[in-house]
């Protein structure tokens, strides 16, 4: 596992939930390798935030993108080379704020990517402002008198947008999370994991999540059940919330073409263009 790490200095706060995501992801990669998915076929991306720093800590290829735009960039990788497994690490501000449209559209088109959302309910790296999924009343530096807005629910929105794989994990349940990551990457089509990630510096939710989370026994069978489960707040189920089958976008649009590999030769292109310009 060691060689999945890098020499980059880790600058997360001690005790940060992000360590759990890093560990679970590395484990998942090893497990996928056992199943024959080579690590060089897995590429990663990330937005900007504490969450995104994971990019520097994982020794895999990919793009450290812009705040909110990783979900677009990672789709760009997939669409150009559909052979690659594409995973992005998105903060909740990143995915639900600046990047919301990209995420909903990725779900809508069933882009074959995996989004791991670090759900800490704050813009952690920019010192604790409210995110779109922060509870009402949050006193961050941009809402000193308490946020006045109700949070969005990532899971119900994604369900409505047509997502084909939705799950929730918790950073303190590493093996469970590992398993979810594995399944999400294996899923053909859009997959999203809402990872409950305590932020010890701005929003320490360990106690809360230890109390409220429980592992789902059965996956919901219907869209309605999935919706209902996603709405629960008295308890926080973790596990797979929704699974569906639809052809992934690249496949539906251009079948087995791999644009980065199956490029026509120069000769062929010029010949075809010459013909096209002849009468």
């Amino acid at each position: 596992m060691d060689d999945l790490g890098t020499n980059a200095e880790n600058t997360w706060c001690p005790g940060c939930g992000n360590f759990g995501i890093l560990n679970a992801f590395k484990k998942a990669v090893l497990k996928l390798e056992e199943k024959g998915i080579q690590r060089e076929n897995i590429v990663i991306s990330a937005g900007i935030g504490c969450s995104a720093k994971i990019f520097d800590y994982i020794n895999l290829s990919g793009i450290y993108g812009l705040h909110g735009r990783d979900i677009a960039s990672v789709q760009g990788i997939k669409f150009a080379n559909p052979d690659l497994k594409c995973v992005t690490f998105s903060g909740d501000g990143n995915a639900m704020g600046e990047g919301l449209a990209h995420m909903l559209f990725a779900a809508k088109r069933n882009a074959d990517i995996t989004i791991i959302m670090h759900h800490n309910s704050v813009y952690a790296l920019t010192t604790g402002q409210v995110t779109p999924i922060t509870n009402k009343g949050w006193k961050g530096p941009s809402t000193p008198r308490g946020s006045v807005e109700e949070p969005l629910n990532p899971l119900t929105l994604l369900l409505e947008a047509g997502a084909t794989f939705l799950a929730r994990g918790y950073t303190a349940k590493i093996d469970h999370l590992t398993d979810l990551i594995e399944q999400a990457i294996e899923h053909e089509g859009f997959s999203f994991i809402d990872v409950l990630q305590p932020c010890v510096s701005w929003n320490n939710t360990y106690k809360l999540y230890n109390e409220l989370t429980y592992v789902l026994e059965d996956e919901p069978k219907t869209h309605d059940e999935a919706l209902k489960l996603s709405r629960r707040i008295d308890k926080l189920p973790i596990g797979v919330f929704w699974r569906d089958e639809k052809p992934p976008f690249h496949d539906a649009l251009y079948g087995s073409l791999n644009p980065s590999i199956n490029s026509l030769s120069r000769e062929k292109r010029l010949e075809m263009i010459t013909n096209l310009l002849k009468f």
Partner: protein
Amino acid sequence: MVKEIFTFLVGGKAGEGVKKAGSVAADVLAGMGRNVFQMDDYMSLIRGGHNFSVVSSAPRKIYSHYMKADLVVCFDKRSYDNHSDQVAEGGILVYNSDDKDGMNGMGVPLTSEAKKYPVRNLMFGVGAVAILCAALGYDKKYTDDLIAQQYPKGTEDNQAYASTIYDHVFPEIGGKFKLEEGDTVRRIVFGNQAIALGAIAGGLSVYYAYPMTPASSLLHYLAAQAEKFGLAVIHPENEIAVMNMAVGSSFTGAKTMVGTSGGGFALMVEGFSLAGITEAPVLCVLSARPGPATGVPTYTEQADLNFALSAGHGEFLRIVASPGTLEEAFYLTAQMLDLVWKFQTSGILLTEKHLSESSTTIELQPDNIISAGGVEFQGNGYKRYLDTEDGVSPLLFPPSHEVIKWNSYEHDDLGITTEDPYWISRMHDKRNKKIDALKKYMKSINTVNVYRGEHPSNVITYGSTTMSVIEALKYGQINPTVVQPVYLNPFPVWEFEEFKDQTNIVVEQSSTGQFADLLREKAGIRIKEVIKRYDGRPFDPMELSKKIKEGL
């Protein structure tokens, strides 16, 4: 009457087949071996309003439409009001006598005749084509065949209608224009098509765009060609996605292009800066229309120049080039695709509605095209941002045993985020070296077109305005030297040394004279006069030649 230049102008409401009639006229004239240039003037609406299409032709290469037309066909009163004073000497004006009568010119009952058929869509256009055929002295057989070929839907009705209109006008105008045939029959291509074909020839694999006039037809054309050429052509949720997806695709080694107009480009500039720091080769076609903001969507202007030259925050190499003709658009697109890959950076092919949406007969040599390339890494121990002599690091694409990290943060040579002063300044230097390397390379290629003339002064212009200038000089029979920088950033100052202190007239389509300022500021050019037009319309060669003459 034998004329060198013959111009056909047809005007009417959107939805009446104005543009199609123009295209058919262009085909007819091109079919005579002549060269043609078609410019479509249309409003931002789907039905109604006032559109016109103007097609000029000559046995020689022709670079612009002319606003004084030999044959003018007006579908309605509004067209009549707009164009009745644009009839050339000895020309013919045909109008719709059902819309308003008692006017100068020849009235034809376009509406009442059309009413006899169920589908009136495009039918006026068919009438215009019949009028053209009659005026050029083509017989009915030719006209019938033409209609069959060009209007596959409702052909019979259209033929019948054409025949009636033909009969109406033939007695008066039949064979009025005898045109010299040209040497060979050439294909007609529209500007965005030339760009698309240049990109494909240069190696394009992936194209992203969100529709925006006047770049939309690039998306439409490529989408239509995608299957044939094995391209991924994708229309995502917005322009921000477009640019960030493009960076992602270029990461895989796929030659990637995007296209838009000013407002869409404005949304892309953050991602453009991302391409700068990740050193992602991405080519953006920026087809300008009058701004600011929504501006005038279906018209032309050259007011995005400064914006393009320094788009995106931070310092990085932005290659900006602008084609002067449709032929050049073809070759230049491929060359730009090559350059963004050679130097791993973002580039802009800057053009305007006037080039994107005009059509002309064209002779292309696909073999002359440059295929996009870049240095590829061999061996072990890959470093994405290896600092080399010219600042260009070898490329490598996934899947690979090596780890390839592109990073939007400042980074070390492995692509790992850094805040270390050493790496920050070193990576700035590395990227800046590419600017010098590109400049050196540019000295080995053609970066400025110089059309030598005998008059001891120069006309300096760029982009689609080049076409207007060349045609104006031909028309006016004046021959200053025309200087047209193809590359605008880095600006090829070295090519301008000889012109610096000569008599220079600048022609551009902007209200503040951005291009003239660029010439003055970057190349120290002395400028006698700046001829500007900024009402959304391209220059007319007649008017322009007068202005240039006055300026010289």
